[in-house]
């Protein structure tokens, strides 16, 4: 009954309610949920160690929503057993310790690809969804640059 599985795409400058999202993606047949959430990291050790005060997110909103929907469709094609899919991206100023994004996938059982689906969702969001973040720290402001170049139509 893939037609009746819920999909939620949210681009928002408001706070997140993980409990509500989970409830919205939970069906009577659901027995597993995987929630990935990105968090604003205050202290980074990997690469060039540095401190972060907060992040400022910017989006090309209408395209970002279309691409988030595309990511959800790609998950459905690859893992047909996944039931609910919620993809959330926050924009605006986000302080250290705050959730920034959520990929939430539910399924009947944990061995249905639900872990891989959530992992794919966040990796793909970071490739094709037009959102950018600026780091504000002791050294001032720095835009974070991505690396992925999507193919035409991707």
């Amino acid at each position, binding site marked *: 009954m893939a037609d009746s599985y819920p999909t939620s795409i949210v681009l928002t400058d408001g706070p997140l309610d993980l409990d509500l999202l989970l409830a919205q993606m939970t069906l009577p047949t659901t027995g597993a949920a995987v929630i990935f959430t990105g968090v604003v990291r205050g202290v980074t050790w990997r690469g060039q160690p540095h401190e972060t005060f907060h992040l400022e*997110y910017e989006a090309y909103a209408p*395209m970002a929503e279309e691409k988030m929907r595309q990511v959800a469709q790609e998950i459905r094609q690859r893992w047909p057993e996944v039931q609910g899919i919620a993809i959330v991206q926050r924009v605006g100023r986000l302080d250290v310790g705050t959730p920034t994004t959520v990929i939430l996938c539910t399924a009947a059982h944990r061995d249905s690809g639900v872990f891989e689906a959530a992992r794919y969702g966040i990796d793909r969001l*970071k*490739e094709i969804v037009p959102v*950018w973040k600026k780091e504000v720290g002791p050294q001032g402001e720095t835009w974070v640059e991505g690396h992925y170049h999507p193919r*035409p139509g991707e």
Partner: protein
Amino acid sequence: MNSTNDLSFSGSEEMNRVRVLFFATLRDDVGQRSLELNLPQNTTLAELEDLLIGRYPRLERMRGLMLAAVNRQYAAPDQVLPKNAEVAFFPPVSGG
């Protein structure tokens, strides 16, 4: 801040009016979020990019690196811009 610019003979019905958007570092480089341009028919995405780099030299460092979307789809450099297209230029994405 928006601005309107005619890049060729103005007032002609053969011109294609497109809306150009800039995000993140590219917006900083250009100094504005959007502009409206009247372009000759059959202008390609690559031609528009060249034109913008000529007008905003700070974009030069992003030549070949910036991403472009035409009507919210990632587009090839040789794509001809459709009528009244919305064209967005931005660096590789860094959300999440």
